């Protein structure tokens, strides 16, 4: 099978995160209690989103420099995969927020608002694509918009939450991934989980692109 090694690695890493994620020792913290283990499953969803959106931006820039429609296809496919992962990211975040912050959604947390805004920005990206018939024009406009969308997302979820108070760790001056809230015991599960899910999303992207290539062959041979 094509690129078998990384597919097996992704499955092994995610499996490891499920097993070790439920069994290994975690810090005993008030309010969080056992729900701290959600870190291994909720946070990787957002790492996948960031990874795929970065990939999407990369191919958008590549398209703008060489005008190859294949790069446009890769760009939009990566954005779709990333967008898809925001759904489990939001839902798992809401469930976790309910038990720790006491509510499914709070508008006082800038990261939640930022994520909601970013999702709208990327929704507009897909709508923009669907509203243009000319393939080249569509690819060019959406590649330019992609740059804008990526910058907006970075401002919304990486910069603004760090400037104001946030309930999320790592924002509003709270350190994330520091010795205070992520000990070494958790790191050995968290990092493989992130890598595993990123590889898994690459697998999904590969399948998506291969199907699209087959479809192109089919329409060109008709």
């Amino acid at each position: 099978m094509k690129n078998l090694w990384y597919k097996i690695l992704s499955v092994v890493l995610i499996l490891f995160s499920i097993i070790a994620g439920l069994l290994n020792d975690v810090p005993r913290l008030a309010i969080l209690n056992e729900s701290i283990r959600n870190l291994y499953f909720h946070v990787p969803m957002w790492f996948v989103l960031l990874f795929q959106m970065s990939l999407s931006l990369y191919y958008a820039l590549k398209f703008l420099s060489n005008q190859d429609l294949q790069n446009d296809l890769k760009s939009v496919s990566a954005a779709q995969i990333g967008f898809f992962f925001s759904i489990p990211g939001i839902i798992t975040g809401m469930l976790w927020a309910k038990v720790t912050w006491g509510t499914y959604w709070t508008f006082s947390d800038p990261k939640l608002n930022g994520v909601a805004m970013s999702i709208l920005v990327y929704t507009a990206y897909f709508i923009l694509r669907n509203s243009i018939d000319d393939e080249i024009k569509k690819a060019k406009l959406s590649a330019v918009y992609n740059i804008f969308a990526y910058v907006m997302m970075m401002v919304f979820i990486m910069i603004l939450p760090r400037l104001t108070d946030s309930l999320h760790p790592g924002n509003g001056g709270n350190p994330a991934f520091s010795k205070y809230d992520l000990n070494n015991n958790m790191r050995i599960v968290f990092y493989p989980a992130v890598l595993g899910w990123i590889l898994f999303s690459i697998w999904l992207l590969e399948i998506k692109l291969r199907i699209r290539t087959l479809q192109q062959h089919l329409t060109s041979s008709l």
Partner: protein
Amino acid sequence: MTNETIEMADILRQSGKIYVVVAVLSVIFIALSIYLFIQDKKLQELEKKIKEKE
């Protein structure tokens, strides 16, 4: 931060029932990934067929 009074699922762990949860989740994930591998394989066969036709 090693406060023993903070409530964790210690009883679930002591009784060993946590292993059942881990096993169930693992089985579901393994089953889904095997399914994805099979679909990947089928896609590859399709790609081969189209290449041969050309």
